[in-house]
C-alpha cells in the first residue's frame, strides 16, 4: 500500500490494536478532498469519505460514477491526483472483488481457493466457511458454483485476514433477488458479530438499506450522504435515480417530501 497521497497515523489507536478500542478512537480510513482524473476526464472531485469501525457505509451511484475508482484509491491500488488518505496503522482489510472469473482450464476447489489467501490457516478457513454456512462447498470446484454460492466463497476469503474493515464491491452481483436480500442480511450479521467496519458498493439502495448505517451517493462528486431513509428523500438522490427506484422508497419519498416536486425539478447539484 505505497500510496503517495496517503499519510500514516500514529495515535492512540495504533497502540491499542483491538477492535473495540479502534471504534472509540480514530476512523479506520479517512479520505478528504480526493481528486482523480483519467485522460483529463475528472472521475472524482473533492470526495470526502470516512470509514469507522463497526459502521457500514454504502457507496451508491450510477454506472461510471467513480465508485470503483474511489474504492481502488482507498485500497491503495491507485494513487489519487490530490487529497489525503489517512489509514490506521496495520489496518487489515478484507476485500471482496466484484467478480472472479475463474478459468475453466484451472481445476480449483473452494478450499484451495481460500488457501491462496496470504493470511490464512486451516482453522480460519473452517471458521469462515462456517460463518457463511458453506462448509458443504469446501471440496466443490469453483467453476461449478452458483452465483450466490460464489459470492459467499468470496466473502469467506475476505474474512480470512480477520479484517478491521470489509470492502465489498457489488457483493450481490449475479445473485437472484431472494439471494440478494439474504446476502445483505448476512453482511449485516457479520458486521455485528465481528465488529468490523464495512464499505459496500451497491446499485440497489432498497436492498442494502437494512445492512447499512450510512449511504454516500456518488456521481463524480458526493451528491448527498446520510442515513438510508434520509438519502432516499434527498432531492439530489431522487434526481439521480428517479422517484421510483423501488416501490418502498417511493412511498417514503411521498411522506416526507412535501416541499419537493417529485418530477425531478429540484436540483441540489449539477452533473
Amino acid at each position: 500500500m505505497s500510496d503517495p497521497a496517503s499519510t500514516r497515523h500514529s495515535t492512540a489507536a495504533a497502540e491499542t490494536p483491538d477492535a473495540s478500542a479502534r471504534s472509540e478512537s480514530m476512523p479506520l480510513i479517512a479520505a478528504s478532498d480526493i481528486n482523480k482524473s483519467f485522460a483529463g476526464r475528472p472521475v472524482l472531485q473533492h470526495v470526502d469519505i470516512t470509514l469507522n469501525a463497526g459502521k457500514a457505509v454504502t457507496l451508491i451511484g450510477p454506472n461510471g460514477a467513480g465508485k470503483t475508482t474511489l474504492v481502488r484509491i482507498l485500497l491503495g491500488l491507485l494513487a489519487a491526483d490530490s487529497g489525503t488518505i489517512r489509514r490506521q496503522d496495520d489496518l487489515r482489510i478484507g476485500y471482496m472483488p466484484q467478480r472472479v472469473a475463474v478459468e475453466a482450464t484451472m481445476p480449483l476447489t473452494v478450499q484451495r481457493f481460500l488457501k491462496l489467501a496470504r493470511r490464512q490457516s486451516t482453522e480460519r478457513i473452517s471458521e469462515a466457511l462456517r460463518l457463511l454456512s458453506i462448509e458443504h462447498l469446501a471440496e466443490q470446484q469453483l467453476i461449478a458454483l452458483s452465483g450466490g454460492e460464489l459470492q459467499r466463497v468470496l466473502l469467506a476469503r475476505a474474512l480470512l485476514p480477520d479484517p478491521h474493515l470489509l470492502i465489498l464491491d457489488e457483493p450481490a452481483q449475479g445473485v437472484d433477488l431472494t439471494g440478494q436480500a439474504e446476502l445483505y442480511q448476512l453482511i449485516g450479521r457479520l458486521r455485528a458479530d465481528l465488529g468490523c467496519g464495512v464499505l459496500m458498493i451497491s446499485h440497489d439502495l432498497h436492498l442494502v438499506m437494512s445492512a447499512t448505517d450510512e449511504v454516500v451517493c456518488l456521481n463524480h462528486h458526493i451528491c448527498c450522504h446520510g442515513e438510508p431513509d434520509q438519502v432516499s428523500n434527498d432531492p439530489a438522490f431522487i434526481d439521480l435515480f428517479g422517484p421510483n427506484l423501488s416501490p418502498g422508497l417511493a412511498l417514503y419519498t411521498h411522506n416526507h417530501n412535501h416541499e419537493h416536486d417529485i418530477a425531478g425539478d429540484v436540483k441540489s447539484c449539477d452533473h
Partner: protein
Amino acid sequence: MPLAQLLQAEFFYFALLAGVSLALVAGPLGSFIVWRRMSYFGDTLAHSALLGIAIGLITDSNAQLSIVISCLVLAFILTLLDRKPTLSSDTLLGILAHSSLAIGILVLALTSSQRVNLEAYLFGELLTVAGQDLLWIMVVIAIVASLLLRFWNDFLAITVHAELAEIEGLNVRGLNLLLVMLLALTIAVSMKIVGVLLITSLLIIPPAAARQLAKTPEKMALIASGIGIASVFTGVLTAFYLDTPVGPTIVVVATLVFFLLAAFSGKSSA
C-alpha cells in the same frame, strides 16, 4: 538400429535426459500458459529464439547465450507493451512473432556460408544433444524449477485474481515479469529439443490433457509433467523405429494422449 545397440549409445541417454528435464518443468509452466491464455505469447517468444540465433551468427557470439538473451529481452519488452491498453496485444504479438521468425530465417539465409541447418532450428534435433548442451539445459531447467516451486502459491494467486493478490500484498508486476522470464528461459533452452515451431505445443498439450484428470492446480501440473515425460520416452523410441524426426514425433505422441484422455473423460462424464 537394434534395441541393444541403442541402449548402449550415449546420445540416446542424452536425448532422453534433455527431453525429460524439459517435460518436467513444462508441466507446471505449461499449466500457467493454459490458465493465463498465454500460448500465443509463448509462440512469440519461441520465434524470437530464431532471431537470437541469427544475432548470434552475425555477432559471432555463443549461440545458446544469444538465444537466451533475445528471448529474455523480448519477454521484457512484451510485458512493458502489455501495460499499454491502447495496443491490441493480440495484433502486437502476431506482428512480433512472425516478423522475428521472418527476420531470423532471412539472416540465416544470408549468412549461408556457414550452412546452418534451418530445419534443426525449426523442429529440433534432440539426437544431436551433446554433453555440454545437456549440462546447459539441465542447469537452466533446475533454476526454472526451483523458482517455480518457490513462488508456486504466489503465481497461482496472481493467476486466479491479480487484484485480490495485490491487495493482500503481493508484488503482482514483479511476479508477472518473473513468470514470463521463466517461460523465456525454458523456451530458449528447449529449442534444441523440439525446435522453434513446436515448443509451445510441448508446453500446452500435456497440461491440456491433464486438465481432465485433475481436481487441483497442483495435480494438473504433476500429471502434465508425467504425460510430458511419457511422451518424450515414447516419442524418442518411436522416432528410432520409424526413422522420423524426434521433435514432431514427441508432439504427435502427446497429442494422441490428449485425444485419448478427452475421448475417455467425455465418455465417463456423459
